[in-house]
């Protein structure tokens, strides 16, 4: 069975935090992150690869790649025993495999830096970074500096936090 659309909420800080800020959640409509690739799959990427959002923003990951499937998977020990690269206390998310046209939603509430990847394309450098809030936001947590078992191709593809905050949305061509 292949649901046409998958949806989930990654409620960092728990459900109470989400209920406590309903206006904030409603005020931040889905920010779309495309999952893309060249026609023959030579290159694959998230678009944008870096994104700055307010706490409580919902992200919608959409597979725009006609010839491939992708995942959006947070780095966290609870998912495939990977290193934690999202803020402490935030709930990790995993879209599972999305076929072309399918989508998945996650809402990020804990301020800080979230790194995620596409499971079949991590070695191809398909990773992304979300910055929730700014360093001035109470409780904001910086990017992880622990490489763990993350391949060099992925580590090299994370955009700098400062560049994301300056640009708001950072695309792969901006990093060239």
């Amino acid at each position: 069975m292949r649901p046409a659309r998958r949806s989930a909420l990654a409620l960092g800080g728990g459900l109470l935090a989400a209920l406590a800020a309903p206006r904030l959640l409603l005020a931040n409509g889905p920010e779309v992150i495309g999952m893309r690739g060249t026609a023959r799959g030579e290159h694959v990427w998230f678009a944008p690869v870096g994104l700055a959002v307010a706490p409580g923003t919902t992200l919608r990951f959409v597979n725009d790649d006609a010839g491939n499937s992708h995942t959006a998977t947070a780095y966290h020990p609870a998912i495939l025993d990977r290193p934690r690269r999202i803020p402490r206390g935030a709930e990790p998310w995993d879209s599972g495999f999305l076929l072309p046209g399918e989508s998945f939603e996650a809402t990020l509430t804990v301020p800080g830096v979230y790194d995620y990847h596409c499971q079949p394309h991590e070695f191809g450098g398909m990773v992304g970074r979300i910055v929730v809030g700014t360093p001035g936001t109470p409780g904001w947590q910086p990017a992880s500096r622990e490489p763990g078992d993350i391949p060099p191709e992925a580590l090299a593809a994370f955009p700098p936090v400062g560049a994301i905050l300056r640009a708001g949305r950072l695309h792969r061509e901006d990093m060239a």
Partner: protein
Amino acid sequence: MFRKIALVSAATMLGACAAVAHDEPALMQAPPGAPYQQVSELVPLPDYIPGLGALWVDPATLPAGPFLAYDRDGRLSATVYMTPLEALRNGTAYDGLGIGAHNVSSVDVYHNAGHPGVDVPHAHVVLFHDEGARARLAE
């Protein structure tokens, strides 16, 4: 000792013959039958991939294949091999691979960043079996 070597040699020869004894009528039209299975039933990939068509593979031959590529009318149009780059660098060789049809009109070799089933960067080697195959698979 000699007998043991002879048996091993015979088995190897049989295996090699089985691997290359393609170009059979049963493969020319989808579905090719056992031991082939549709790739989209094995891993989460679309049933039809633009450029590669509908792929079928004998799971025992993964990751290299051969993958049999059929157009939208079910006509065998290409044979595809997928060879992980790191394995090649480390000395792995993929020899004696089968082929869907013996007529080959052109060959494409290109890099692929990965996909379910072969989730590491690898090379796609695509053997097109007739002049119109590339255009049909692209549809």
